[in-house]
């Protein structure tokens, strides 16, 4: 049911400016059952995700849904706070909004990549900016994926799982370049 949902959602997400669907985004292995995975996470080290968004509703939705599938979630409401938290605590992944009131998401990503302590943390943009130029910019800044709003929070956890899988297998960069090449077309 979850996998079936993803396709129309993706299509809706990219409707205005970048209609080409990106089916390979979910083509990396079959998704494990949510409950099984959640159960498995109970005992293993729970992956830590930093959610950066100035909209409280967005942070709330991400937090609820990611926690439900076994992630440990920390929130930051602006760029400055995000950098602060990321420097202090180790994260497995950062979900980063682009439009932030103080330091923009792109700048946050750049700074994270510049600093030794945060360079290794994979960044996924989560934005309502959906043009090809925006996506390109995101991937160029080293993002391992770019999720467009609106998104289905039910499959968000699964998506994050897949991304982490790619990162673990060392395929993240390959995927990133693939995305960039496709955006160039």
């Amino acid at each position, binding site marked *: 049911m979850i996998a079936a949902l993803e396709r129309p959602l993706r299509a809706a997400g990219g409707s205005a400016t970048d209609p080409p669907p990106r089916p390979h985004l979910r083509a990396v292995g079959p998704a494990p059952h949510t409950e099984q995975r959640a159960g498995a996470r109970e005992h293993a080290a729970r992956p830590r995700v930093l959610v950066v968004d100035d909209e409280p*509703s967005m942070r709330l939705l991400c937090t609820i849904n990611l926690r439900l599938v076994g992630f440990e979630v920390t929130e930051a409401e602006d760029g400055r706070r995000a950098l602060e938290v990321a420097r202090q605590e180790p994260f497995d992944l950062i979900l980063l909004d682009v439009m932030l009131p103080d330091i923009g998401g792109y700048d946050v990503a750049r700074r994270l990549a510049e600093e030794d302590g945060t360079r290794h943390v994979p960044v996924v943009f989560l934005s309502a900016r959906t043009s090809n130029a925006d996506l390109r910019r995101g991937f160029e800044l080293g993002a391992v994926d770019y999720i467009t709003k609106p998104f289905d*929070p039910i499959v968000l956890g699964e998506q994050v799982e897949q991304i982490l899988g790619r990162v673990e297998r060392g395929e993240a960069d390959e995927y990133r370049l693939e995305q960039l090449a496709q955006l160039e077309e």
Partner: protein
Amino acid sequence: MDEAAAASSPVDRQRPRRDSALVAQRRTRLALGTLLMLLVALGGIAVLGSGRLYRSSQNQYVKEAIPLRTNARDIVLQMVNEETSVRGYLITGNRDSLGPYERAKPAIAADFATLDSLARRRPEIGGNVDAARSFVTDLERYFAQQVALVAQGPAGQRRAEENVLDGKRKFDQFRLAADRLLTRSDQILLEAERAQHDTFRNILGLVLAVAGVAGAIGLALLMFVPERMRRLYAGEQAARRAAERGDRASHALEHVQASVALLDNNDRVLYWNRAAERVFRVPEAEALTRTLRELIPELDLIEEALARGGPGAVAPVVVDGEERWLAVSQTTLAEGRVLVLRDVTTEQQLERARGEFIATASHELRTPLAAVYGAVRTLRRDDRPVDGELDERLLAMIETESARLKELIEQILVSADVDRGEVRLSRETCDLRALCESATDAVRVHARKHTFSVDAPGSVLVECDPSRLRQVVLNLLDNAVKYSPDGGSVEVRVSERPGGASIEVSDEGIGVPADAQAHIFEKFARLDAGMLRGVGGSGLGLYISRELVERMGGRMSVRSQPGVGSTFVVELPRVPSLVA
């Protein structure tokens, strides 16, 4: 290509026409010259002919034929006188009767002298004259002999009488010779007459021939010249019209907003209108000495745009350090091309702003939609723990974000209405203090970092559209919150003013840079056009607010210091003088 043919044809058509006009002109001139020469010849022939006629009559008639006949007759007459006189003397013996004989002798001599001179001119009569003279000499000798015999007395008289018969024979012989001379003179007269007639006929023939040719030429001219003239005139007229048309066309082109350049096949400038002078800052006189590449260094960009064609045929050109966008199009002619460059910088900017607006609007709509959709999907999640408080928060989220969506859509629609001038405003008395307090209460709920205050001297009443004005105040409050991300106080001050009232909304936010203050009320204006930072915004709020306030007869302005804060001021008349 049709255009090309049409444009090149006047030139092509004109050349042979001009050539044929030249040929016609040359022919006409030739004909007129010939006619003139013939007329001169005719005059000459007439003068010469009459002269010749006069001379021939003078020579043959007056000088030859008439004197010949006169003298010949005179000789016969004188000889008759002599004979009569001598015969009378013979009969009477009276010496007195010899008078006529004596007088006739010198007359005859004179006559022969004349005939001799005529015979020198006309040798053919010499024989006749000599014959006549020998008979005259013979007769004269005979008369002298008779006169001498009569003078000797009666014996001599008898002998003289015996000689009379012989004398008669001699006289008859003379008469014959004289007649032959006369016949001869008549012949000469006749000849002279015939010669005159021939001369006259010849001259007449010549005159008629020349006159005939002249007449033919004249007739030909009469037939062809008016037609030629008409054609020449028509050609001239057409040429003048073409020239006038060219003048008018270039006059029109001078006043066209687009830059127009006519180029030959080597891209040399043949025409350069005033708009081109203005856009490229090159006067026509200078442009005419250059190629297009010398005038426009970015020609390659223009050629690329031309190759693209259609609505994409727009190229950026830098003139005096300023980037201008030019829509380019061209028409190819046989002898070159016409390049039309229209400055679409303003349209381009507007187009860019519109594109940015679409991106902005899309972003602005997606954000609340993401919240609504996300909340609904979360509520639908079956692995969600039972948590009434969480459910309540998600429902409230749906409520708020739906309202925000509605608000945004409203704003987009209102801005479209404002653009079209289709905003209807109601007009009722409203209390600005109450309006501002209620608007502040609505905003306060979402802005927990900010403190709000409304300061008013009491009820401040003006006539306005309360719902639209509330929209304006809400927008100003939203902006105050959005652009002071670190929180701070937001103050609303309502005060009476002469003839009206004002609402001031102040914040302690990031402020508006001085150079941006003039633009923030423009459509799609955003402080951060790239939307890389800051809170979202459609770029329509202030535009709509100012338009609405102005339609209520008021004014809107801003005072701001970056890093310190901004104050937006709405001034309203108590009674609006103009209501849209």
